[in-house]
């Protein structure tokens, strides 16, 4: 690992991954940008707590996870749980086949409906590509808990793609 590189530069290099992870957690692009911003501020304020023998990526993703949970709690306190939007703002797939595009939109809609902890497991492993062990570390849960959340999240997502609730539009044209 590049432990001698200025951690600020490591953080800059992580930004695209943070954006992607945020996009998997929250559907609205502006909300995702806000989440990245909050994460960066918290990371900078706590950079002295980061141990140089630890991985900065997992550490930062953990900060984003906490920031996201804080935001969810705040919204729920204010009873402003908003319904998933129809358009998939985060999908950048204009050139792709319609079928793939539809599937991507269904995945986005399905992700928005997953229970938080399942969405987090999917975002860490399937979107960011962390190993089970690293993802469990970020979530602060045992390996077995991570795998069961991941398995349940996948099953729910697949069921949603195959048969979206009425009014949501089909996965295939």
């Amino acid at each position, binding site marked *: 690992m590049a432990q001698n590189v200025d951690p600020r530069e490591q953080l800059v290099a992580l930004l*695209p991954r943070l954006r*992607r992870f945020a996009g998997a957690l929250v559907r609205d692009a502006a909300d995702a940008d806000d989440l990245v911003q909050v994460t960066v501020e918290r990371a*900078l304020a706590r950079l002295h707590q980061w141990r140089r023998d630890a991985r900065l990526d997992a550490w930062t993703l953990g900060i984003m996870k906490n920031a996201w949970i804080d935001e969810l709690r705040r919204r729920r306190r204010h009873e402003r749980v908003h319904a998933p939007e129809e358009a998939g703002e*985060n999908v950048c797939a204009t050139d792709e086949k319609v079928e793939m595009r539809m599937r991507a939109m269904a995945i986005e809609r399905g*992700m928005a409906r997953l229970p938080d902890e399942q969405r987090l497991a999917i975002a860490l*492993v399937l979107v960011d590509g962390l190993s*089970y062990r690293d993802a469990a570390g970020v979530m602060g849960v045992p390996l077995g808990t991570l795998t069961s959340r991941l398995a349940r999240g996948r099953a729910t*997502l697949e069921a949603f793609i195959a048969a979206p609730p009425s009014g949501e539009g089909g996965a295939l044209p």
Partner: protein
Amino acid sequence: MSVTPEMLMAYADEELDSHGRAQVEQALAEDPALAETIERHRRLRRDVAATYDGLLARPVADALIARIRSALLAPQRVWRARLEAMALEWAPPWGVPLATGLALGVVLGLTLTGRAAPPGAMIVADSEGLRARGALAAGLTERLAADPATENLTIGLSFRDKTGAYCRAFVVRAGEGVSGFACRKTDAWRVRMALAEAPAAAVGDLRPAGTALPRAVLSGMEDAIEGDPLDAGEEAAARDRGWRR
């Protein structure tokens, strides 16, 4: 032997150890239909990744990058706070008439032309760069940061630079004033930074807010410093060794 659905998922994600892989592969041999489950997991993984990978290519706001790059790392924050606190203590004694600062006369003299520096010059340019002399050189050599400031010269914080040389911050209050820091090299104090600006002097009963070193000097010192600034004991020991490494 049967395998759990979670093992099939972990197999698809290449998360199983060799023992687990062997178990799944044996089950696959007995029940080829399991391959469909594994393929379904892999397909979902590919599709979920593809759904969000487009975000990687989106440009990141320049302001955010600038924000990160300009952030002070914790050690810098700690010692800047220390330095600013110390700078406050450098304010000259109350009620010193401002005019006495002018008695120092010329601060900067040039000797490159071969002419002698004007008497009273505290920084001179020579063939190697800028050198402290006179009252400034004496202050850098003899005074400790804890010593009370005279009305026109303050010696502050000492630290080591990246070559291990001792460096010290100073403020000269004469004319426009000069703030900066100098590092000990062989037998001279080489002035590494000199800014024609001094923190405002105390006036009457009011200790002005601007008694900290100018920001540009703080930044210059932050770039030069290696490790932590010297504490009072280390500073006294360094002085007693004649500021030799």
